[in-house]
């Protein structure tokens, strides 16, 4: 299908962007790899698309005192290949390989994925597991939110109208593992797990990333068993829970 009609603007500064996204019916466009399909399928009908890819300072990867700060506009392809990310936050580089296909990874962005908060997306779970801090900018200035408090539910985050997610800061160090099950490489996850040290965060078994707590494998399994994942077209809730358990054991063994 074809997208409905809308206006398009490409601001060159954050100030200009704030003015534009404050207009009625405005929506932020970053890499567009989720937004444009939803427009083509007419699931979304904005009046104005504000293309933020021309904003300066949102495409850097900076290593600084135990954190890696990644700009919201950094693409999946860059995360997958960047030497600093691979060295300091290997979980993210591993997760990026699972995001759709190469042609999509060349345009889709970290910020777009975090701000959309698709329950099947990789980065939100990574951000919660790694205890990342999200940097949000608005007319009144900048604020910082811990990933655990940022993801509120299905496609729902702490972002307020008029705000732009500008970067995410990931603490470095520690052992991590990223696992995802799909029917075919690049498909949406059936279930996935981002595990860092003692933090086991599942995705696509709930409306937002699910942090499962426990200090032994038995305790973790007990906590996991309390979750009722939503079924999809091909997998029942029980199957997804079983598969989540398989990933948990694999992660536990390799950590």
């Amino acid at each position: 299908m074809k997208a409905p009609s809308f206006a398009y603007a490409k601001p060159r500064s954050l100030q200009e962007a704030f003015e534009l996204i404050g207009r009625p019916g405005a929506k932020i466009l970053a890499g567009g790899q989720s937004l444009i399909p939803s427009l083509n399928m007419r699931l979304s009908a904005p009046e104005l698309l504000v293309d933020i890819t021309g904003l300066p300072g949102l495409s850097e990867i900076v290593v600084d005192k135990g954190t890696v700060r990644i700009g919201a506009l950094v693409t999946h392809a860059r995360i997958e290949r960047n030497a600093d990310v691979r060295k300091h936050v290997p979980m993210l580089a591993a997760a990026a390989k699972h995001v759709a296909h190469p042609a999509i990874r060349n345009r889709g962005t970290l910020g777009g994925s975090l701000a959309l908060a698709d329950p099947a997306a990789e980065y939100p779970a990574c951000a919660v597991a790694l205890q990342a801090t999200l940097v949000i900018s608005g007319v009144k200035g900048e604020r910082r939110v811990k990933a655990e408090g940022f993801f509120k539910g299905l496609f729902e985050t702490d972002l307020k109208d008029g705000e732009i997610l500008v970067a995410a800061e990931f603490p470095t160090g520690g052992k991590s593992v990223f696992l995802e099950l799909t029917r075919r490489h690049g498909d949406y996850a059936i279930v996935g797990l981002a595990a860092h040290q003692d933090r086991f965060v599942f995705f696509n078994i709930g409306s937002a990333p699910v942090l499962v707590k426990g200090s032994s494998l038995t305790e973790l399994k007990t906590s996991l068993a309390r979750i009722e994942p939503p079924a999809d077209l091909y997998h029942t809730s029980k199957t997804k829970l079983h598969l989540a358990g398989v990933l948990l054991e694999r992660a536990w063994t390799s950590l």
Partner: protein
Amino acid sequence: MDLAVETTLTVNGTRVTRRIEPRQHLVDFLRDELGLTGSHIGCEHGVCGACTVRVNGEIVRGCLMLAVQADGCKVETIEGLSDSKELAGLQKAFHEKNALQCGFCTPGMLMAAQDLVLAKEKISREKIREHISGNYCRCTGYQAIVDAIEEVLNGQG
């Protein structure tokens, strides 16, 4: 209300300036405005890869990029890469191995496969499959396609 935005891009080496409606995606623009119908339209939501084109040297989904977003960009399509003979090796291998059935996915397959050729690394069949997973279509089992790509990458069938 006129929402069109003046956009200048380079398509297969030719500079083009048009007023473009923001709702028009890149592959519709290439096909309908410029007559470059080699890039196909399949699903229009990023799943099939038939619309794969190269923007500033990187492969992208032509249906998941608005034409107005290509302002200032260098766009290359299957026609450009075919005319410049960049794809000659892959085209010969696809031809010889009969690496297609209906052929609808072929332009996108070639664009994605050329990405691997440019990387100049010897890789396994498994990795080739992973790379073209974004172009899976319907009618072949991809054996012959993987054979053809492997021949060009590794010099073996």
